[in-house]
């Protein structure tokens, strides 16, 4: 099939705790994007409970897809392909989306495309800025991932660095829970930091000048130890100081990565990319270095299906459809495209 600017892709995303569907035309024109969040269901557990997530996906998926089609104002017969996250993520959650998406493709007699969730995050920025020039450095930060990726072209990536232990968002989640700041941790730390002093406590900046990999588990431990030692410390000061430590490392390394590969700019992606201080500091660093800063909106940074449809469109054009006997790959790495076949 010809994949061009008229090709309309339905994206489906169920890898964690958001059920999402979106219609994207030509790989970058978002016709509709619907996200049904399960945050309230998981809040009482302080984290995502896989079985709760899977049940909610099964219940929400059809209505979410139907809404994306209605809001797009199109007839389903106009859809040219169905793209869906096949990994990484929670296996039971992924399987709901993959099963439904393959069924939709079969019933509509259109190609199915399996999409890597991490690769899709790289495409979120392209949905809002179609003039991005390669090479780019993408800083992908979420509760599950912290990585720096060089994007040399569509589908052509090089992993520059990644966390060797905890993800940045994981450190936020754990500290927020420890300080009783609320769930999810990222937004809670962001909010609490407003009232705190980022210089109150000097937490460690691990591996600052040591390659492009990250390490956040020592930082998390040091925060927890500090609070146990100084129980009267203001939570907002701890939050602000932790946030500053994490962001200092992220910005420092992203900047160096961009310099090393001669990137035209830095692209932010992942749930933590919604953090206001991170956005401000990346923007300032890029301005100082004379390169672009591409900061997708909060809706595009966090999990959504428009990025899945966009990545699916590129994959369909470059590689073609995926077979209908494909399953889900919970630990799929960014660069192992062979899994999608």
């Amino acid at each position, binding site marked *: 099939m010809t994949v061009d600017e008229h090709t309309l892709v339905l994206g489906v995303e169920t890898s964690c*705790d958001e059920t999402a569907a979106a219609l994207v035309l030509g790989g970058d024109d978002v016709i509709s994007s619907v996200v049904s969040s399960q945050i309230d269901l998981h809040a009482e557990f302080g*984290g995502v409970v896989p079985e709760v997530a899977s049940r909610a996906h099964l219940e929400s998926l059809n209505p979410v897809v139907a809404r994306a089609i209605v809001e797009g104002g199109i007839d389903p017969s106009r859809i040219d392909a169905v793209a869906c996250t096949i990994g990484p993520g929670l296996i*039971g959650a992924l399987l*709901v989306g993959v*099963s439904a998406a393959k069924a939709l493709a079969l*019933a509509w007699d259109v190609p199915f495309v399996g999409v890597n969730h991490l690769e899709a995050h790289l495409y979120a920025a392209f949905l809002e800025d179609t003039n991005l020039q390669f090479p780019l450095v993408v800083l992908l930060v979420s509760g*599950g991932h912290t990585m720096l990726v060089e994007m040399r072209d569509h589908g052509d990536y090089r992993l520059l660095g990644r966390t060797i232990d905890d993800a940045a968002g994981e450190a936020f*989640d754990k500290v927020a829970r420890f300080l009783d700041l609320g769930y999810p941790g990222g937004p809670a730390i962001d909010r609490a930091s407003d009232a705190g002093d980022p210089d109150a406590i000097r937490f460690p900046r691990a591996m600052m000048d040591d390659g492009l990999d990250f390490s956040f588990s020592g930082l998390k431990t040091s925060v927890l130890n500090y609070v146990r030692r100084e129980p009267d410390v203001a939570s907002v000061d701890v939050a602000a100081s932790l946030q500053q430590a994490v962001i200092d490392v992220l910005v420092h390394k992203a900047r160096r990565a961009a310099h090393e590969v001669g990137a035209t700019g830095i692209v932010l992606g992942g749930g933590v990319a919604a953090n206001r201080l991170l956005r401000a500091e990346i923007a300032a660093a890029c301005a100082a270095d004379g390169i672009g800063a591409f900061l997708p909106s909060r809706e595009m940074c966090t999990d959504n299906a428009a990025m899945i449809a966009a990545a699916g469109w590129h994959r369909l054009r470059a590689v073609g459809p995926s077979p209908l006997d494909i399953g889900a790959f919970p630990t799929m790495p960014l660069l192992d495209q062979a899994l999608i076949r």
Partner: protein
Amino acid sequence: MLILGIESATESVGVALGGHDGVIAAVEIARGRRHAESIVPAVQFVCRQADVDLAEVGVVAVDIGPGLFTGMRVGIATAKALAMALRVPMIGITSLDLLAFPARHSDRVVVPVIDARKGEVFWAMYRHVPGGVQQVMAPTVGSVEDLAADLMARGQESLCLGDGAERHREVLADVHHCEVAGPRHPSAGALVELAHARAVREEFVDHHEIAPVYLRVPDAQINWSTRQVRP
């Protein structure tokens, strides 16, 4: 009216196509590849073998459990999406109804027993009555000892079917008047036949109304060390 049946609540996966003249094509995979990989290809296969275009399907029937959560969800998600895309109604039937179906003419109490893992089973009880089958005990979950005690108290001739009955054959064999026999798994053929009877009575539901029968609340025990990642 052409019915497509999808069944994946246990280790087995089945897809069948049929209607007024019974089952016209069926695939049963007793134990093989994971459910999500095989269901859609199985749908394609039965359609091709029966020379039927998927668009001709008028009803999508599905096994709504109880059973293995991930497996049954794969079948239900597939069936619901097909029904929505094809714009056809659905019929949901429990795995226990399906398992009891082949023994519907037995004059004993028919007890389908599905392995629920963690030492438990799902079961229900049925009795032959003039003109059909009556459920004498609603689907439930519990230990096989609970089931054995219940059967013992009833003191009636009973027939236990299914992978749960096979797994706990020794416990059930101790029960007086109780026999363990096949089949091991619900079948998609039974699903199509039972769905046809309901379709004749126009007992359809919309895809929004298909509700899985879990019989167990999610195991929400989590702690910091076993937290799942947020990709």
